[in-house]
């Protein structure tokens, strides 16, 4: 225990002496959270709509009003000829183009089937498809307008009633920040000792590799805890993400996640010779794939089956589930224990592999 405290004191002293590290530790997460909190949104509002009304009737006017009265669309152009729509779409000034054919009102009044044309800009798939589905929604409502509804559909969205993507993105960003910081720092810390030659000096002392590893990782776990504490007020009070569950659950389930990220950092340090290499390996081999496959941005259920299997070994996947569960659903350990166990298992596995490699490399 005294041995561990001795290493810990040394690590903290070194951190204190590094003038560059403190701003990185405390300012960077806040800035990242704010930038990503605003940018990482998948809500689509005020989609630019270009309209070509060839009917010019009361009915067609009413249909266009149905579009523009919603907050989803903003009419940017009303053109007289259909081919003019192409120009609006090509230039990107419009994302969705609506054409109402001549005879629309007459057909409708006669009860004949009517067709309107929708063109969507697929080059931005997110805006294009969402815009299209909003548009279909508007059309469905408009079509149902005159007829009695046989079924009254009242959809209810649970946990995030307004479906604000910010509410599920921001906790994900928090997870990412913890991962990046703890992994990056732990990988660089060990590589730095090797670069300076102090690692060799440590290994000729009676300190065991295990003690050196634990003494190195504990300070970074503490830093991870400080990061969360700094970032949490921003999540809660700036972005007003509701915290439905308990802080204790959050804290408890953060520990096994950090075990994984610190272990991965250690693993990186056994493969890297320089701090730059450590940074590259962390980023490209471990961080980006984790972010892509964690369900943080892309829903896991939409991935090919093979990739879905891969996500089971991604610690971030479990932690994103934990964060969304605790923040939005207010669930506790009774629901999230499998995630906790999975992270604990992965963490221990990663650490043992890393320790084995650490020994081999130095032995």
């Amino acid at each position: 225990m005294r041995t561990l405290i001795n290493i810990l004191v040394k690590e903290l002293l070194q951190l204190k002496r590094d003038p560059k590290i403190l701003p990185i530790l405390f300012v960077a997460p806040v800035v990242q959270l704010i930038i990503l909190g605003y940018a990482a949104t998948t809500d689509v509002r005020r989609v630019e709509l270009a309209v070509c009304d060839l009917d010019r009737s009361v009915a067609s006017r009413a249909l266009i009003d149905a579009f523009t009265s919603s907050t989803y669309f903003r009419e940017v152009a009303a053109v007289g000829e259909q081919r003019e729509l192409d120009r609006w779409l090509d230039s990107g000034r419009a994302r969705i183009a609506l054409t109402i054919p001549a005879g629309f009102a007459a057909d409708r009044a006669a009860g004949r089937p009517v067709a309107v044309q929708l063109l969507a800009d697929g080059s931005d798939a997110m805006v294009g498809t969402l815009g299209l589905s909003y548009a279909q929604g508007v059309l469905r409502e408009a079509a149902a307008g005159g007829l009695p509804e046989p079924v009254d559909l009242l959809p209810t969205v649970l946990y995030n009633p307004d479906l604000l993507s910010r509410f599920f993105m921001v906790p994900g960003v928090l997870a990412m920040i913890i991962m990046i910081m703890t992994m990056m720092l732990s990988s660089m810390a060990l590589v730095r000792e090797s670069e300076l030659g102090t690692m060799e000096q440590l290994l000729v002392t009676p300190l065991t590799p295990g003690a050196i590893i634990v003494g190195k990782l504990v300070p970074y776990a503490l830093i991870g805890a400080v990061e969360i504490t700094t970032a949490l007020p921003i999540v809660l009070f700036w972005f007003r993400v509701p915290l439905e569950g308990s802080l204790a659950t959050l804290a408890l389930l953060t520990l096994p996640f950090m075990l994984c990220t610190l272990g991965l950092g250690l693993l990186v340090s056994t493969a890297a010779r320089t701090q730059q290499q450590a940074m590259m390996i962390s980023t490209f081999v471990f961080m980006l794939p984790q972010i892509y496959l964690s369900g943080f941005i892309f829903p896991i259920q939409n991935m090919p089956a093979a990739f879905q299997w891969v996500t089971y070994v991604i610690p971030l996947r479990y932690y994103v589930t934990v964060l969304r569960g605790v923040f939005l659903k207010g669930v506790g350990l009774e629901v999230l224990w499998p995630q906790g166990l999975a992270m604990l298992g992965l963490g221990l596995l990663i650490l043992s592999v890393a320790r084995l490699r650490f020994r081999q490399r130095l032995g």
Partner: protein
Amino acid sequence: MSAARPAAAPETVVSARELSRRFGDFVAVDRVSFEVERGEIFGFLGSNGAGKTTTIRILCGLLAPSSGTASVAGFDVATEAARIKTRIGYMSQRFSLYADLSVDENLRFWGGAYRLWGAELESRRGWALAAAGLEELRSTLVRELPGGYRQRLALGCALLHRPPVVFLDEPTGGVDPEARRRFWDLIDELAAGGTTVFVTTHSMDEAERCHRVALMHAGRLLALDTIRALKAAFPAGCVLDLASPQPVAAMTLLEGTPGIEDVALFGDRVHVVVDSPERAAGVAAALASGGQPPTAIEPGAPSLEDVFIKVIRDAGARPGP
């Protein structure tokens, strides 16, 4: 330190038997055997890549031997590395203290690493500060210390736990001559107190201060003895010291002459090594015929460098042992 050790002197503190270490196809250390006695200053000489550092790393338990055995302070390096680590001090050729910690913080940390606490740590810390001459600078960050102080601090850190054996891997690289002399005074004191000092160097001056030296070349141990014995073994009549009005011209002239093994300038004298006593007689004639007759010519004493050049040349001339 260990009560189990026999009281009778001389005691063998470090021993290597047919020690080898391979990295893939490369043989870094090739069947090396030697023994080092308690209180001895044992010099390990050789150029870079000769296998000195690899040997030291094996003895410190940092590397496992590929074959052969070695023991340090009575413990086997392959199986009892953990016990060896409490009994050795090690100073690597790269400066390896924490530059961003102060002198005191380094001593406390390394003391703790050697499991020194409380009053014992305080007393050893005081000793190390005094030995390194750093009492006034104890709160200074190590990165701000001049090289000589850093070296002595590194030695102090390696000696905090009073190890019976200390391994110094090129300890005085990049240190000015005065600091180097002070460092070696410290080493003499240690050895006089019974500490075994195992030191690698490629400086002949430093080698002269060792009790015995071993010469490594291409992984093999080519010679091992006291300086006096090594020099005595050098063939008689093969070294000449000559004076010349134009020593550089004389040297250039001799360098191309057959039978001349080495020519070096020592101040205003030319130091010449020839391959046989018969050849020595021809040196004056060769100089005279080249227009550089020497003003004086007399038998010289071989330098340690002459000895090693000859040993390496002889080893290269015959196929491996």
